[in-house]
Structures are given as C-alpha cells and as structure tokens.
C-alpha cells in the first residue's frame, strides 16, 4: 500500500525544492491541498474573530470591543468566513474529488487552476493586511454604500481590492470546473451517471460564472466612488445606494447557493456510502439541484424587503423565495429515504452528514419565515436573521464541509483522521452550535438588531446573549480538537487503502490513496451510476479500462500563476494607497499600480508565447508505479 504521494521521476530533497514544488504545481490534487491549508488558516482567523464578538456581547455594555473596532472584527469575521474559509474549502473538495469522480487525469485548465488558488490566497492576505495597515474594513461583509464609499476609512479599500483579487480566482475556478465536467468525463459517463457531488459542482460552477461578474462591477463602482470621485452611490450628485444593494444581492444570493450546493453534494455522497445503499431518487435530486441553481437568481430582493420597493415587488420575490423551499425539501426526504432500509455506519463523516439534516431543516424553515415580507419587516437586520444564516451556513455548509473533510481526507493524504477525536469534535461542535445560535432567534424577536457592539442592560437581552456566548466556547473546543487531529494524523495517522471506507461507490475509491500523479493508469469505462460499486458487486476489484496502457502526457508546473498573483497584489496596494480620503489622489501610488498591470501583461505574454510541451510519463514508469501500489 502506497504511503507517500506517488511521484514520477527524480525528486530533489531539501526545503527549497519542496517549496518550489508547491509554488509551481498545476496538479489539481496538490492544488486541493493548498486550498485546504488556506481555508483552514482563514477559518481559524475567522473563528477567533467570532469568539471576540461573543466575548464582547456576553454582558451588556461591555467595553472589550466598541464602535469601529467592533465593526472591524464583525466585518472581517463575515468576510473571512464566507470568502476565505468556506469558498476555498469548497474548491479544495472540488479539486480533490471531481476529476477523480469523472475519470479524468486533471482539470481542463491546470494553469488557470493554480492561478485561481494564488489569487484567492493573496486576496486573503491583502484583506488581512489591513489589520496592520490602518485598520480593517468596518462596513459589514455587505459593504453597503454610501456608508462604505463616503463615511468609512481606508479599511474599505482593502475590502474592495482584496475581494476583487480573490473573486477573480473564484471565477476562474468556476469556468475550469464547468469545462472539465462537460468535456472530460470518462467514456460511458453520461450526465445522468455522474455522481451527485459532481452534479452540484457543475451547477455551483454555473452559479459562480453568472454571479461573480456582478460583484466585480459593484466593487469597481465602490472603488471609483471612493478613489476617483464617481457618483454611483452619491445621493448629492444623483447617485443611489440602493443600486449597490441590487448589484450586491444579485451576486450575494447566488453566492449562498454556491456555498450550500457543494455541501448538499457531500451529503449525497456520504449518506449512501455509509448506508451501503444507493442514493434514493437520483433523478429527482439532479432535477432539484438544477432548479435550485436556476431559482437562486430570482430571489435577491428578499434581502431588500425594507428598502421601500413596494408591496408588488416584495410579494413577487416572496413567492419566488418560498418556491426554493420545494426542491430543497425534496432533497431532505431523499436523504432520509436513502438511509431507510440501509445499514447506517456512524463514522465521523456520517455523524456530520446526519447531524446536518435536522440542523439545516431548522435553518430552512426560518428561511421560509423570513420570506414573508410583512413579518420580515420585524426580522430584517435583527438577530433573527443572524440565527437563520448561521443555521444554514454553519449547520449546513460547515457541517457538510467537515463531513467531506473526514470522508475524503484518506483519499487526499493516504491517512485517516482519528475517529475518536473526530467524534469528540462532532459532539462539541453540534451542541456548541445549537447553544450558540438557537437563542439568537429570540434575541432578534425581542428587539436586538444585528451589528450592534453592545445592548442595554434593561432591554431583556442579557440572558440570551450569555447563553449564546457559552455555546461559542463549545465550538471553540471542537475546532481545537480538529486542529490536534490534523497535526497528529499528519505526523503518524492510520494508513488508508484505495477503497478506504470499504464501501466506496464512486470512481475515486477505485484509485490508490493518495492517487498517483496521473490519477488513472487507464481511463475507466463507465457502465452505470456508482461505477465502482457496480464493478465490486459484479465480482471485480477494478473498473474495466476504456483504453490500452500507454504513455501519459501531463502539464508542466509553472511559477507564473504565483507571480501573476503577486503582480495583482502590487496593483491592489497601488490603488489602496492612491486613496487619500477626499484630498487629491496619490499619483505616485497609481503609477505603482500601473507598473503592476504592466508586469501582469508581461507575464501573460510570456505564458502565451512559451510552448508547454508538458511532462511525458512513459508506459514503463506507469507499470512500475502501479506495481508498487499493489
């Protein structure tokens, strides 16, 4: 059984060659690990920000974090968790799993894949650099205008540029997976034989493609208003902050479906595997996923019910919002019926998947409650909304991602995460989560608005806030256990074989753990849903190949993605420091930004002109590698 990643040819020892390998990789499996590291780091940062918030709010009129300082911590908590933790964790799983699930050797655009990662990572660094360079953004993760463009400080420039850079990376990732899934499936894998996780990856990628450009434009508008004196959101000169709200939420609502659909995909893989039973209602599940993706673009105004757009607009969007509950509910039933009649194994991955179901249902029903505009006039911008979105994002997305993490960790690294510690993590996280967020529904209904750094002691909000803060400690303990688990496992975890969990159904489990550089020695021939399970039930330990053994051509590594991201970082800092808050522009800084653009164009030129002949893996090398694995 292979214990180290299979590499072809000579590998130099030493720290610098190791660093170079990771800086220049275009291999989707390594990029998946890079995304996981980045996501993990930022998840810890966002978690500390959350703890600070809960400590501040544990007693009324506390003075740990007040005013703008609190607003910075609150803004960065939301922005970091959504853009720098959840989304990259999703890309980690997409990269690690999708090419293997469809029987491909890599994604469609390996170079772009690497570029997407480095843009995310450097965008995250730009955003967090603000802490040390004059203050973090403090306009909330939604950065409403004109607050963000006229009334806040330099922190908002970091928000605008950091997200612009990170967002560019995400867009590239979306296009990459769309083309990969459409063009590079193994022979015999029709769309209706794809695993559900791949289906959700496909729809998520389509959502990314059509949602992120709106954010790109909105961020440019805020940049232009703030630095160049444009009037998009300046009421005095005819502009209108409501335009920002429309643009942001036309992006923002699909964004939350971008977050949840991959989690749905994970649940659709984990529950069947650990029930030893195929997914119930595959066709309906696919249909529901597509419908949710479509409806995601039709509901954005439900974030704006109190703007005063009028009862007609509000009612139309209310109905559309309620409609999304139908395909979502359908999925819950299909998961329950997958377990019905099965043999359910409660591994940590499955605990998170099963724990997801009631938690997400609670989040979903408060969503339907929020869809009623007249009632939303009370709920909007109160802790009721905070409770709702934490139920669906933490109870939905994070539970799903943690399930996927424990499930696919052996495939990515060749080792199992410790199950006992995993279960401790689960129970602390599950209970801690409910204790933290359930009281917040009541806090909102009792009159506590969101984004408040404190509350009055006479308002009856004290007990609820204290309970909520206690719950956060439970979640912190869970995360600490997880970190210990990762460190312990990396040092000497239990080794995993190809079919790590014994009942693997999809193609990735037919490969060694971790998979060799070229993934499949021979591209498999797919004859149905759950092709690996099918092969095992028919008595074989491998899936039939679709091609003879032959030489394999893999793309070359490149330092350009990392350098291009550095160039864009230079551009970003150029714009950030051009903003002198209302006085004349810093022209020198703009020139610096221009240099960054020139550098970027130069590297694009090099990439265009240089021919990549790739790496050639000879047939004999493949035979030798496969023999070692056996």
């Amino acid at each position, binding site marked *: 059984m292979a214990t180290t990643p299979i590499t072809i040819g000579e590998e130099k020892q030493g720290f610098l060659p190791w660093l170079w390998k990771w800086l220049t990789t275009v291999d989707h499996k390594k990029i998946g690990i890079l995304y996981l590291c980045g996501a993990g780091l930022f998840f810890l940062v966002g978690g500390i920000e959350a703890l600070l918030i809960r400590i501040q709010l544990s007693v009324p009129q506390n003075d740990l974090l007040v005013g703008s300082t609190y607003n910075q911590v609150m803004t960065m908590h939301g922005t970091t968790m959504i853009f720098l933790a959840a989304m990259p964790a999703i890309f980690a799983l997409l990269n690690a799993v999708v090419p293997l699930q469809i029987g491909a050797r890599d994604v469609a655009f390996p170079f772009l894949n690497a570029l997407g990662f480095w843009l995310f990572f450097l965008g995250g660094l730009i955003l967090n650099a603000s802490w040390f360079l004059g203050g973090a953004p403090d306009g909330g993760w939604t950065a*409403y205008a004109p607050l963000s463009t006229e009334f806040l400080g330099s922190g908002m420039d970091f928000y605008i540029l950091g997200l612009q850079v990170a967002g560019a990376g995400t867009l590239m990732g979306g296009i990459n997976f769309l083309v990969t899934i459409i063009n590079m499936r193994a022979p015999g894998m029709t769309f209706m034989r794809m695993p559900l996780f791949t289906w959700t990856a496909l729809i998520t990628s389509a959502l990314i493609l059509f949602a992120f450009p709106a954010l790109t434009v909105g961020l440019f508008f805020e940049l232009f208003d703030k630095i160049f004196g444009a009037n998009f959101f300046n009421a005095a000169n005819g502009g209108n*902050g409501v335009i920002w709200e429309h643009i942001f939420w036309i992006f923002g609502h699909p964004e939350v479906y971008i977050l949840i659909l991959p989690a749905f995909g994970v649940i659709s893989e984990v529950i069947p595997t650990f029930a030893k039973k195929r997914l119930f209602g595959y066709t309906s599940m696919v249909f529901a996923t597509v419908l949710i993706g479509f409806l995601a673009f039709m509901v954005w105004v439900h974030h704006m019910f109190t703007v005063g757009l009028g009862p007609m607009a509000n009612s139309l969007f209310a109905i559309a919002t309620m409609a999304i509950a139908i395909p979502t509910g359908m999925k819950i039933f299909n998961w329950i019926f997958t377990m019905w009649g099965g*043999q359910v194994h409660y591994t940590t991955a499955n605990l998170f998947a099963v724990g997801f179901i009631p938690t997400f249902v609670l989040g979903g029903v408060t969503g339907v409650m929020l869809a009623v505009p007249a009632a939303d006039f009370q709920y909007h911008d109160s802790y009721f909304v905070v409770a709702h979105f934490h139920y669906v994002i933490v109870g939905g997305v994070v539970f799903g991602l943690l399930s996927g993490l424990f499930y696919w960790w052996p495939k990515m690294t060749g080792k199992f995460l410790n199950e006992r510690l995993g279960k401790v993590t689960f129970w602390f996280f599950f209970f801690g989560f409910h204790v933290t967020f359930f009281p917040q529904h009541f806090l909102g209904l009792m009159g506590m608005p969101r984004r408040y750094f404190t509350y009055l002691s006479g308002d009856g909000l004290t007990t609820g806030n204290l309970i909520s803060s206690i719950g956060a400690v439970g979640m912190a303990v869970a995360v600490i256990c997880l970190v210990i688990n990762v460190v312990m496992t990396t040092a000497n975890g239990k080794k995993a074989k190809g079919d790590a969990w014994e009942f693997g159904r999809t193609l990735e489990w037919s490969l060694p753990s971790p998979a060799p550089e070229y993934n499949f020695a021979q591209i498999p021939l797919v004859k149905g849903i759950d092709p690996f399970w099918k092969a095992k039930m028919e008595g074989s330990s491998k899936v039939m190949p679709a091609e003879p053994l032959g030489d394999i051509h893999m793309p070359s590594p490149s330092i350009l993605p990392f350098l291009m991201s550095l160039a864009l970082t230079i551009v970003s800092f150029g714009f950030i420091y051009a903003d002198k808050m209302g006085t004349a522009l810093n022209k020198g800084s703009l020139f610096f930004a221009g240099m960054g653009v020139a550098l970027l164009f130069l590297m694009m030129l090099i990439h265009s002109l240089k021919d990549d002949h790739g790496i050639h893996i000879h047939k004999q090398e493949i035979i030798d590698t496969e023999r070692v694995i056996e």
Partner: protein
Amino acid sequence: MKKKWQHVVHFLPLVVLTALLSACGKEGVSALEPMGDEAHEEAKLMILSIAIMVIVVMIVGMMFAYVVIKFRKRRNQEEYIPRQVEGSVVLEVIWTVIPIILLAILAVPTVAKTFSISDTTSKDVTKDALVINVTANQFWWEFEYPDQKIVTGEEVVIPKKRDVIFNLTSKDTTHAFWVPALGGKVDVNPGQTTKLKLEADKEGMYSGRCAELCGASHALMYFNVKAVSKTDFKTWVSDMKAGPSDPTNVSAKQGQGLFKNNCMSCHAVGNKDAGIAPNLTNFADRQTIAGFLDHNKKNLEKWVWNPQAEKPGATMPRRGMNANLSKGQIKQIADYLFTLSVTQ
C-alpha cells in the same frame, strides 16, 4: 445512546420555541409583545408561519429519528448488503405536492398583509393620520411635525390609537427606523423618502432603534416613542409651541448664556430648527440623553465634556477636556438644560 440524544436534542428546540413564544422579552421593546396594529398583524403572520413550519419539522423529525435509530449498523452484520432502491415516483410526488400546498396556505395571507401593512398613501389611511417627518443623522433622530409646526429630537410624542405616518430621509448614510413593539422597520436612505405607518394601542414608552449599520455608534442610535392620550397630545403640541420658560435659578441663568454662545449654532431651543443637532426644546422631559444614556445631570455633564468617549464617532464637537469649557461651566449648562421642560 447517541442516537437517542440526537432525538432529544432535535425536539428540544421545538419545545423551547413553543413555550417561550407565548410571552417573551421586555414590554415596549420586544416584537413578541406587540402593542400596535402593525405589530399585531406581523405577530399573527409569524405565528401562522411558525405553526406551518412546526408541522413540517415534526414530520421530518419523526421520520429522521426513526431512520437514524432503526437502521443503524448492529454487531455481526458486516456482510449484509441492503437492497439498492432507485427511488419512488409516488413519494416524490407526495413530498412535492404537500409542501406546495403548505406554502400556498402561507402565501395568501403573506401577499394580503404585505399590501395592507405597506399602504401609507391610500385615502383611507392618510385621512386621519398624523404626519411626522423624520430625518436620520449619524447618530441621532430628528422629528418634525409639519402640520403642528414643531420640531423635536430623540423622543417622538404621538397620540395613542391614531395612525402615524412617518416620512423618513437621511442626512448622511443609510439608517433604518425600528420600533419593534409597534411594528416593523423601514430603511432610511439619503436623497429619498420612505414611509412607515405605526400605531400605538396604549399610552406608554416604546423603544426605537437604528437597524442598518451606519457607522461606529450604530448600536447607540436609540430613540423613544411616547404615546399619550389625545388631549395630552394637544396640550403637548401647544406647550411645545410656547416653549420652555426662562430659567430663574442663578446657575441655570449662567448656563443659558453659555449655551447661547457655545451650543446654539447647532442646537435649537424653540420652534426654529437648526437641523444640525437635536432640538432641545423639551430636553428635560425626555427619558435619555444622546438617545441611550440614563437621564441625569451626571451623564449630561459627562456627555458635554467628551461626547466621543460616550458615543464613538459622534459629530458633536468636544467642548470640555482641553477645549474651551471648564467643568464648572458645563455644570451650569447642565443646570440650564434641565430647566428645558414644556410640561410645567
């Protein structure tokens, strides 16, 4: 056993929810203790939606609890492979149609109430309503009564059992106007006017707050709604028009002089509205200072000494603490401000 725990934990929130929803939160603050027409309507919708959702959660919860316990792997069953079931068209239809029906039941009153609560312009609503123009600023509220021709700040007085239509706009960034005990909120945008209709059933104090992030002191931008009887309201209006009487006390007299020289360029006393800072005509009758501080001389002196220490980002210039007024002078101003009552 962990599966039974999950079962219990799953139902616990429901029990808690139902029990607590019956009466919760501080009266005058909480939306769960509705005290106005709009709040009542909204609470009814909340209860309807919760009832429907509880049905859904119970059904799903029971199925979930059953499956999670009944089909868990038991010992010595390693070789068993369950029957692989593709799906069931009948079930798919059932769990699509029933939710559609439940949502339809919710949708009808949703649309009806959304239209009726949002109506601030039809003749039926406007003919007997009191109109108040509200201007939101960082971080305080100004209230102007166009028909009565008076202006006040931070505390708005309304007659009970009469519709009040608020016309809202902002001087700077987007805020939101929310009095949870009386009804829902509306955003307050610069360069536009939004409208909100509220009504109070009884006399009393209702707490209002800003509900859209507007800067450093978004959390301290409270205001109060004071509902009084019809006759008391009439009296109050004429008292406000008459204004407070001049102070008799020596210290307050000194304070009045200091006030004229240091504060009057922004703060008006009387009908004339400067609009840059809260109108202080009936300051002594209010419940709070700067919207949230307890209403006493000590707090007022602290506020005038250094407003930014109490309310980060406050735009009121600092007059104490190394500026031009001494503690003694601020005390005199406080004495004066505490004579500004119209109800004597």
